[in-house]
């Protein structure tokens, strides 16, 4: 009994060491950051010690301010992304399958995809104001392109033999889309979502910095304006955590949906 307990504890410890080894360069950097800050080698305004930032992060979290702003950012980013995902997949798949739809959308995609979408924020402020709706539309427009382009490419690349196989086994043209085209194109469609997700956070974050209205971007820029450097970095940590969290979720969903690849 004791032996097994020891063994499992030993295993945990070695795992911890393994984990430590895998991130040691990061740990060194963080320690260096703390030391540099504590010794005052870099002015507090530019880079407060890590511990101050973490304390500020905890304060903001406990007061609810951080969670509320994170909620605002996440809500804007995810609603916009959801709209773009639905429209992007519809447009992408249809233009890969239908010449007339492609004739209409191909030039639009060619022009729209490479536009640095952030540059349009002032235009969106003119048209839709600075509220939630304006931000959500901006995210939807910005993330539409990678979703649509990836959906179109992966649909185009569905092997003809798979479509022929389904047809010979009695699948009608109407059902072909659901039975074969969509499942075969799913890996590429999910890749589009994975590219669009961080983009949705970037767009929301920048829009919030420029136009305010709460959210992590607004929290960060507020910190700059009120000389609260620790708040600036705390907001950055929050958006990083959200980005990493969402990426993990998408990877998990991808693994589940594509266990056959």
């Amino acid at each position, binding site marked *: 009994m004791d032996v097994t307990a020891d063994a499992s504890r030993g295993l945990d410890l070695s795992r911890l060491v393994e984990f430590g080894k895998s991130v040691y360069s990061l740990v060194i950097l963080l320690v260096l950051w703390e030391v540099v800050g504590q010794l005052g080698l870099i002015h507090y305004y530019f880079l407060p010690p890590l511990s101050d930032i973490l304390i500020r992060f905890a304060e903001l979290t406990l007061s609810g301010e951080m969670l509320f702003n994170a909620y605002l950012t996440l809500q804007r980013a995810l609603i916009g992304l959801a709209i773009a995902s639905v429209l992007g997949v519809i447009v992408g798949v249809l233009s890969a399958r239908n010449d007339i739809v492609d004739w209409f959308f191909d030039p639009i995609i060619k022009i729209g995809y490479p536009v640095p979408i952030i540059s349009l924020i002032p235009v969106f402020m003119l048209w839709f104001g600075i509220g939630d709706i304006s931000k959500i539309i901006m995210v939807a427009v910005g993330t539409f392109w990678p979703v649509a382009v990836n959906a179109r490419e992966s649909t185009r690349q569905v*092997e003809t*033999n*798979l479509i*022929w*196989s*389904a*047809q*010979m*086994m*009695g*699948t009608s043209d109407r*059902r072909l889309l659901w*039975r*074969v085209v969509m*499942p*075969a194109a*799913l890996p590429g469609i999910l890749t589009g979502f994975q590219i669009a997700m961080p983009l949705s956070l970037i767009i929301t974050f920048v829009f919030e910095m420029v136009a305010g209205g709460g959210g992590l971007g607004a929290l960060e820029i507020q910190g700059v304006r009120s000389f609260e450097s620790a708040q600036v970095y705390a907001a950055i940590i929050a958006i990083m955590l959200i980005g990493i969290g969402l990426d993990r979720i998408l990877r998990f969903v991808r693994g589940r949906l594509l266990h*056959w*690849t």
Partner: protein
Amino acid sequence: MDGRVTISGLEKVYGQGAERTKAIEDLNFEVDGGEFVSVVGPSGCGKSTLLYLIAGFLDATEGTISVDGDPINGPGTDRGVVFQDYALFPWRTVYENVTYGLEEDGVPKDERQNIAQKYIDMVDLDGFEDKYPKELSGGMKQRVGIARTLAYEPKILLMDEPFGALDQPLRESLQDQLLDIWSDLGKTALFITHDVEEAVYLSERVLIMTRHPGTKKTVAEIDLDRSGSREEIVTSDDFAHFKNDVWKSLHEETQTEVTL
């Protein structure tokens, strides 16, 4: 017997203008119901095109293809294709690949299971029902390809170099398996290959095609005594004789290709 394929005045042209190429020209041929016919020809002679025209995947430029007297119009479940690259649905398990055609036909679940199991057993894939295609070897994938095509019970089997990507021993065992299945089920079989020995071993007749544009050069009747083992058959004088005939005829075509 059902499953007669009649090809008359068939012509297939790809592309337009300067890129216009004629793949098949004035082809007339008939495969009897229940017959096993192989098609050989130099590469680029349009033998795969012929198969896909019969399958209904491609439209003929001229001429008609009929099954039991009715001209075909697109793909249909009276014909089943076995592809060289298997073309299985990678997101479906072996079992789900085999039942696909039955699902499309609205066969109830219990019945689907019985039918699928019958054909999975027939191709010796018992125990692999829940595997995905990526987990299978090439030979196993092709057996799934055969089972899924047999499962929805087409009258005509169209096979496009189905064993072309497999090594020799595996190819031979699948050939024998295919012959057993064919004689059990009594289906019409049209088999594309570039392997003369394979064509002679499997078929009652071999259609030899000319090089580009492809059309019928000759038809060799393979009147072999197939009662013995594989070894007895392939080492017999008759087998050598038929193989030589087909080889010579095919060689004339490939020679032309080289001198050009």
